[in-house]
């Protein structure tokens, strides 16, 4: 293993330009994937923020006793989809309307009695905030005798569902395409490095080196280049994020665990590309 490390480092020293080129190519390939990841991450977070506002509102019949409502809240909170239930009394509804609809202040002042009904605002748990689950919960709420009407912005939620589905498909397709392109680029880069050392491989084989022995320094070299490229790509993505955050929109960066994925992705790509390149090369020089 020590010898393999030495050989891998020797390769870096011997061809610093090619090594730097490999690392840079890997860095830019992963950077493109990273940029897309950053966009996807922020889009996803924005969608989750919007989703948080998704709720089902059950309007209660006037005069429903508080005790009945309290029991019903307990029942609704036990729905598996439900995160929390807020009881809004008639007075609270009026106060909220007065606060939010300042332009109708005159209308509120002329009111003799409060026309607004009490309601239950039901928020769902993440993962249940789609139109199907909302419809199910709404149907169950309608089953309560004292519920007059149930609203959840059906059209709006359906649109949100569509945006979410399109984003997921887009992420999968474009992200997959970027990742595949980076695999090809990195694979080609590593193959060039293997090709450049084909004479050395031939000599190693002649003096009795096993395929495993020949492979190991290449795997280490490729993995190291991949990890380095991943680290540089992370740095580049961070610079892009800072520029975006300061000049255009407030954005979020990857958390530490997500950031580590860059390095691991680079490492894994470098490793697998080296394995494929050197194995293919060794196969091509087997006796026939």
């Amino acid at each position, binding site marked *: 293993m020590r*010898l393999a490390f030495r050989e891998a480092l*020797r390769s870096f020293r*011997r061809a610093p330009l090619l090594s730097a080129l490999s690392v840079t190519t890997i860095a830019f390939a992963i950077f493109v994937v990273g940029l897309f990841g950053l966009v996807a991450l922020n889009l996803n977070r924005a969608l989750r923020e919007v989703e948080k506002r998704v709720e089902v509102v059950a309007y209660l019949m006037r005069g429903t006793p508080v005790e009945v409502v309290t029991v019903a809240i307990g029942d609704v909170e036990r729905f598996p989809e439900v995160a929390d239930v807020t009881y809004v009394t008639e007075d609270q509804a009026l106060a909220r309307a007065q606060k939010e609809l300042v332009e109708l202040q005159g209308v509120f002042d002329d009111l003799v009695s409060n026309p607004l009904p009490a309601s239950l605002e039901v928020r769902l748990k993440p993962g249940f905030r789609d139109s199907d689950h909302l419809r199910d919960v709404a149907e169950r709420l309608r089953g309560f005798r004292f519920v007059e009407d149930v609203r959840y912005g059906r059209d709006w939620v359906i649109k949100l569902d569509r945006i979410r589905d399109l984003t997921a498909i887009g992420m999968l397709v474009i992200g997959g395409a970027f990742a595949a392109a980076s695999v090809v680029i990195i694979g080609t880069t590593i193959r060039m490095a293997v090709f450049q050392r084909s*004479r*050395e491989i*031939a*000599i*190693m*084989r*002649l*003096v*009795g*080196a*096993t*395929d495993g*022995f020949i492979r190991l320094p290449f795997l280490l070299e490729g993995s190291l280049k991949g990890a380095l490229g991943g680290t540089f790509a992370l740095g580049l993505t961070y610079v892009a994020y800072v520029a975006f955050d300061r000049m255009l929109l407030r954005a979020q960066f990857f958390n530490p665990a997500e950031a580590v994925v860059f390095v691991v992705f680079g490492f894994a790509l470098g490793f697998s590309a080296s394995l494929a390149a050197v194995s293919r090369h060794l196969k091509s020089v*087997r*006796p*026939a």
Partner: protein
Amino acid sequence: MIRFRNVFKAYPKGSLALKDLTFHIRKGEFAFLTGHSGAGKSTVLKLIFAEELATSGSVQVSGYHLASMSTRDIPKLRRRLGIVFQDFRLLEDRTAEENIAFTLEVTGARSSVIEPKVTRVLAQVGLAAKALAYPRELSGGEQQRVAIARALVNDPFVILADEPTGNLDERATRGVFQLLRDINANGTAVLMATHDLDLVRGTPFRTLELQDGGLVYDSAVDRPAAETES
């Protein structure tokens, strides 16, 4: 030790490199493999160190039947052979001693074993003073000596030399040839492919002559092989 029996070698394009080759190299023997370019000398050597496989017939090297040998056993076989080429095939970014040590390192030998062995073979080929020189700092003859030292360091039972003097001037040629003779005198067999008949003439060693892939002369039987078979 090395035994060819009715060996044929055809290449994918259909050309026949070796035709019905049968010979036997004994332990400690020195033999020349001669013939014009394209006669099949290099192919014979490649079959011995399992760079290529015979199309038909049997090649046996130190107990290994190469046709049925697993690819995993090829490195084991090669560690028992010393291989020398016309173009030296040294690693340019390593010193003479590093080139030689590398052969032992790939076998997993410890540095305590490697150092004395490298020193010994460098002295044996007369290059003790140039241990730290890089190939580009050595003459052709010296580079070939390093290649021979590399071939020797695993204590092989045979040195396979493919035109080892092909790139050398007359003086270096004589030096390298004498070195191979000395190695042979110490008990290691040498099979040397060459088209330099001046080198072959005047030596007591066995000569196998190839022509168009067939064996046309074997001095061990002291007459053309074709006549022997008729």
